[in-house]
């Protein structure tokens, strides 16, 4: 016990399963839970769609809601849930000194404008002039702000008054890994006392799917659990919309204000395997070794994406460690990109807090029956970057 231990005191979750910690815990501990899927709208791709959300519950002003596209709204909403859960929301003294790291990609482009420009490009050779014509007249001026990566954090400052500091990390799953790693390091070193960390991803947009599919990463054909997509048509990823935010505090800060502690965040590891050089399998295995896994049956909440090479590397590393029981939550939520690692750490914290594991999310996952005092969270990026964290019981 160290006053600068990093403890998790607030969790905000949104996925196709619903919103909030209770709903996620209840559903994810229901054996045989079926995923919520939309197989029609983006066929041949399947997505895990957003649930019904009453944005007013976390974003009181309609004006603020209008200034954001769905991705920013979703992140701002999930951040609000985490602040609420930690009992910090609306506490001006705590929010105005709270540091924030958001893992973000970009927001949604205006599909109607893009479609019109593309259609016109079929009959025009002066495409640069066409762009100027259309973009100057048809873009909504404020859309830019609704797309900008750092404006998710900006909106969280505006809506929830979190203003200690604001940083946005970019770079797919790795952004979420680095966000948690540096947030934890800042608390451990005394550079910060309480932080809001997380991300969101809104998958239900052609451009978001295009981002994956230019690399051939999307799974096609009938839905399969995340571990069972090797050899299936496409690249293995089924995406989802959702978000995950965590409130991290130093133990001293949390105890002084009487905050409820879900779990302690142990070591957070990050890595950049040189995948084009064939180092992925060895690097993933080395990361498991470096995580300092306890010599006992261990639950591992995996952010595996389904992408063939990365998921296979993780599967191999898990298979070689018979005491690991992995839970690939993307089976039930879809791939949430920047939010994957925060989501994994959140689910790990819930398991530690409830002193119970999750049932297997598909038939291939090993059973886990014990009380999880430590839970591993993993994120092997679908294209690059890797991370892990050990989440430990609060006391």
């Amino acid at each position: 016990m160290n006053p600068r231990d990093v403890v998790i005191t607030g969790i905000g979750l949104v996925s196709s399963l619903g919103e909030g910690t209770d709903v996620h815990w209840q559903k994810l501990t229901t054996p045989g839970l079926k995923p919520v899927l939309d197989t029609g709208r983006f066929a041949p791709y399947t997505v895990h769609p957003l649930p019904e959300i009453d944005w007013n519950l976390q974003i009181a002003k309609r004006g603020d809601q209008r200034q954001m596209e769905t991705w920013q709204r979703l992140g701002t909403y999930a951040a609000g849930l985490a602040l609420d859960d930690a009992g910090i929301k609306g506490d001006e003294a705590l929010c105005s000194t709270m540091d924030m790291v958001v893992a973000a990609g970009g927001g949604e482009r205006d599909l109607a404008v893009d479609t019109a420009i593309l259609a016109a490009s079929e009959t025009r050779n002066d495409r640069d002039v066409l762009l100027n014509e259309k973009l100057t007249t048809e873009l909504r001026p404020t859309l830019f702000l609704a797309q900008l990566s750092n404006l998710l954090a900006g909106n969280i400052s505006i809506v929830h008054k979190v203003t200690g500091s604001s940083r946005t990390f970019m770079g797919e799953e790795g952004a979420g890994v680095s966000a948690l790693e540096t947030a934890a390091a800042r608390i451990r070193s005394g550079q910060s006392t309480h932080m809001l960390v997380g991300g969101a991803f809104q998958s239900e947009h052609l451009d978001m799917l295009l981002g994956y599919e230019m690399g051939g990463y999307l799974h096609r054909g009938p839905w399969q659990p995340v571990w069972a997509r090797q050899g299936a048509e496409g690249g293995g990823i089924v995406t989802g919309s959702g978000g995950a935010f965590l409130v991290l505090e130093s133990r001293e800060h949390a105890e002084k204000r009487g905050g409820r502690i879900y779990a302690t965040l142990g070591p957070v590891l990050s890595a950049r395997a040189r995948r084009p050089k064939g180092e992925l399998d060895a690097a993933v295995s080395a990361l498991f070794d470096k995580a300092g896994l306890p010599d006992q049956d261990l639950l591992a909440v995996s952010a595996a994406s389904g992408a063939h090479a990365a998921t296979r590397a993780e599967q191999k590393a898990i298979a070689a460690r018979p005491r690991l029981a992995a839970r690939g939550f993307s089976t039930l939520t879809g791939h949430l990109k920047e939010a994957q690692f925060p989501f994994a750490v959140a689910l790990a914290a819930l398991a530690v807090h409830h002193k119970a594991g999750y049932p297997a999310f598909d038939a291939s996952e090993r059973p886990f029956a014990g009380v999880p005092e430590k839970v591993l969270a993993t994120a092997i990026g679908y294209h690059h970057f890797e991370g892990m964290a050990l989440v430990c019981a609060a006391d």
Partner: protein
Amino acid sequence: MADTKDHMGRPLVAVTGIGMVTSLGVGKKDNWAALTSGTSGIHPITRFPVDQLSTRISGMVDFLPSSDKGASALTYELAEKAAHEAIAESGFSLDDFGGPLFLASPPMELDWHDRFSLYNSGKGDGDPDRLLEVARGLTSLDLFETAQFGSIADRLAERFGATGLPITLSTACASGATAIQLGVEAIRRGEADRALAIGADGSATAEALIRFSLLSALSTSNDDPAKASKPFSKDRDGFVLAEGSAALVLESLESAVARGATVLGILLGCGEKADDFHRTRSKPDASPAIAAVRAALADAGLSEDRIEYINAHGTSTPENDKMEHLALSTVFGERIRSIPVSSNKSMIGHTLSAAGAIEAAVSLMTMREGVLPPTINYDNPDPAIQLDVVPNTSRTAQVGTVLSNSFGFGGQNTCLVMAREPV
């Protein structure tokens, strides 16, 4: 070796390498010569047609091989060139740098030319879904990589042998300063004895220009491009969109001294404060900017009266310059009238994600060379802004400490305090 720790007992962070590219040229030498002779890099846009555009000037970097290859390729090349210069100066290995990388760069989107090309190689009447069909059949990852947010840092880490997972970040116009802050913090925590901080921005596409135009943020003084960026002037009418990069090799002073490296300056303090007022406008009372300046001074362990020169954010927008003046006069009181404050953006425009890094690099050179770069185009002073802006021509002055400000859209404010020698 007792003086390698700061006022809080943390490792002092030295700068042992600096690299830079702007519209004024590649490298510190050319940039410094231009910046101290009051030369503007702002010029008419030639990269794309300017039909329909109300702003037709910029500070784009048009002389690199990637200048017409899209934002991702150009941002990489800008970052690579600056990092190369900085690492070479530091004396560390160019392919085995051995420290973490922090990259400030713009958000990535599929370039319109690539979008057109994907679309028009597919079939299906006006159906945007055909983008996905064509994408599915691509046989190379080149396009994919241009739209991944982590790819530029991934390539840079590979190129220079940076350690660990490279961090790509955005705090809008404060990004470059945040990259430096992350490096400073990592060294202070003892995680590394050296770090590479880069700010790079090659994203001045037509769409980027139009987006800022629609927000009424850009100067439309098209007729005399060199005169368009006029920070602190009464007739300032917006910023000039620009590109560029800068890289700093940050190193614990202890490590720098031990290996006999030349210490180019000290990163004494970093401060930040977010604004909750509005998505593009700063709080009218400037309280977040004031808090960021004060946080940087406190982190540096310096009182206000120790700052000898200020490298302003100075964007040339009506609002920023007014707000920045209010912030500075609040923090420094009457003394602000006698502290020189100049804006590099008067010459190179606003390089967005790179600006904080470029301005930190220029601040360090200002101290080393004993010359203050001017604020050019200061022909019509704003009477409401009483500052010594080092008008129009550079000035010889020995400066031991500098404050550099970066204030971003979305309310992200970061300030850096640098010193010529350890204090």
